[in-house]
């Protein structure tokens, strides 16, 4: 078990890309506390896998250090870092039995045979694999194979951190749910740090205690699911998490107050006005926009009934606003007034939060 610290990490895949300023990971400092369940969330190509491979030692970062419990492991090979990794596509050794697959990492480390047997059976029990220990690994279904690759990580008694790189991609939908709850259960049982990479917000929010959101090679926010929802640090987080995503409305400052097309707004807290020339945006989640008798006058464009509530698409001047309206509330036919909940109205300057 260990705390993992990424100290001023930067990475680029080639010298040419580096000269062009094209970094796969821009400078970041991140600390992963011992025993946490983390999700690493972001769209494809944002650098999640790169970050994961740096932690596991499959990649050596161009700059910066990786610390496990304050010990520098930047140049330490993967097999000495006490980490385990489960890949997007199941990796099993086809010619071996399930038992041999699970025993493989232990045999490579020279553990005595009786200890191995004990460990393998223990892990097989945890993963419900006892029945197929004698079978060839190649004959298993995709979820069985993913369990084996997970088992090869868990079987080692010294694992600091287990990493999952979109492990449910090839799993049937009805098994995804089962496997995910199994992971959660294992996390409680084993107590190792787990880092779960995904581009699916539902997967991330259900698995993790803390979610690390990445965007274009930058960690934009680390927080609990509630924090990400209520106070997104960056417009990307607001937009990416939540369904529908956060409303972002262009605004300017008049007498120190954010104003949308002449309409002044209250925001969550006082702020120091930014330099001129930055792009200012008001961010508010559709859940915190209310229909009202006064306030912003908008045109109703469309109403979508999604079951327990309705999503209303409205328009103020040229800007689109979405709001979530409970089932029983009446919606005016074409024109309405709306109010923003000031406690959840945030101001963003060049995409980063001001308040």
């Amino acid at each position: 078990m260990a705390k993992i610290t990424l100290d001023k990490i930067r990475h680029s895949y080639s010298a040419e890309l580096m000269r062009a300023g094209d970094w796969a990971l821009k400078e970041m400092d991140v600390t992963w506390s011992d025993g946490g369940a983390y999700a690493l969330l972001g769209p494809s190509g944002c650098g999640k896998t790169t970050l994961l491979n740096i932690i596991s030692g499959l990649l050596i970062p161009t700059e910066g250090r990786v610390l496990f419990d304050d010990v520098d492991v930047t140049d330490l090979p993967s097999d000495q870092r006490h980490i385990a990794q489960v890949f997007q596509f199941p990796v099993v050794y086809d010619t071996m039995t399930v038992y041999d697959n699970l025993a493989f990492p232990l045999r490579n480390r020279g553990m005595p045979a009786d200890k191995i047997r004990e460990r393998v059976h223990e892990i097989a029990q945890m993963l419900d694999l006892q029945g197929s220990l004698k079978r060839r690994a190649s004959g298993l279904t995709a979820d069985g194979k993913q369990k084996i690759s997970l088992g090869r990580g868990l079987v080692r008694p010294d694992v600091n951190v287990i990493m999952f790189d979109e492990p449910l991609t090839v799993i049937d939908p009805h098994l995804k749910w089962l496997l995910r709850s199994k992971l959660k259960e294992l996390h409680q049982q084993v107590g190792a740090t787990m880092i779960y990479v995904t581009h699916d917000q539902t997967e991330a929010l259900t698995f993790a205690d803390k979610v690390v959101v990445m965007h274009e090679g930058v960690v934009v926010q680390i927080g609990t699911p509630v924090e990400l929802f209520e106070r997104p640090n960056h417009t990307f987080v607001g937009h990416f998490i939540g369904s529908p995503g956060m409303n972002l409305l262009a605004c300017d400052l008049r007498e120190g107050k954010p104003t949308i097309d002449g309409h002044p707004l209250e925001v969550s807290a006082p702020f120091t006005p930014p330099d001129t020339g930055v792009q200012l945006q008001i961010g508010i989640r559709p859940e915190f926009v209310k229909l009202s008798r006064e306030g912003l006058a908008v045109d109703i464009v469309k109403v979508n009934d999604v079951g327990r509530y309705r999503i209303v698409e409205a328009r103020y001047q040229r800007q689109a606003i979405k709001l979530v309206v409970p089932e029983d509330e009446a919606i005016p036919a074409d024109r309405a007034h709306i109010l923003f909940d000031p406690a959840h109205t945030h101001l963003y300057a060049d995409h980063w939060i001001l308040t």
Partner: protein
Amino acid sequence: MSNKTINNRAWWLVTPVVLLVAFNALIPLMTVVNYSVQETFGDNVFFWEGVRWFEEVLHSERFHASLLRQLSFTGIILLIEIPLGVAIALTMPKKGVWVSVCLVLMALPLLIPWNVVGAMWNIFALPEIGLLGKMINGLGIDYNFTRQPLAAWFTTILMDVWHWTSLVTLLAYAGLCSIPEAYYQAARIDGASRWAVFRFIQLPKMKRVLTIAILLRFMDSFMIYTEPFVLTGGGPGNSTTFLSIDLVKIALGQFDLGPAAAMSLIYFLIILVLSWIFYTLMMRNEEQ
């Protein structure tokens, strides 16, 4: 494989192939069968001979000797070319400009007409004017493949290794390229040794292409004719007279059509049976 629809009209699609191959395979095969049971003294006069030619071939020492030479040759070149080809594929670069350069240069021997291969090696290995011959003699070893059977064997095998190892390399390389990076990463995390990576990841993933490579090399080396014929003419003496060379000597040299036809059939049958046994063994191994 299992989700194919049953449709007997698909026969229309294979008809052209069947007609073309049947014309090329069945009619000549029938000619051979016809000759193999008859005796002729020219002028298209034939006498029924039954299985006499088959008995004669099967009991002839000459045939036994050719077959033994053929088996030794095929065995030796398989033992050299398969491991060597795999080893070179393992050390080849995975990406970059050098991949194309390597592949193009390695494929070169495969596209040289077979008698040019023989002629090239003849010029290359001649003791007086050939680079190889000169080099070996320069080392103080008496080497002349036109006079010494051992030297002839050495040259023929070296030539075949030169000619065909690339086929194994290219097949093995294609197999290696299909292994996802995650396998190597998982192996690194599992602390696997270089040997274990080869034994448990690379070898199993190369199995299909290696089966093809071994089958192709087996069949083609068993039918080898042109290259050794041009290089050594089957000599010195009969020391490099492999089955095909012997067959052509009997059929076209001595015009003994009956024995030649019987030998042809036995020869073809040996290849079929050995290929079949080999193929079944590989497949059974796969299913386990």
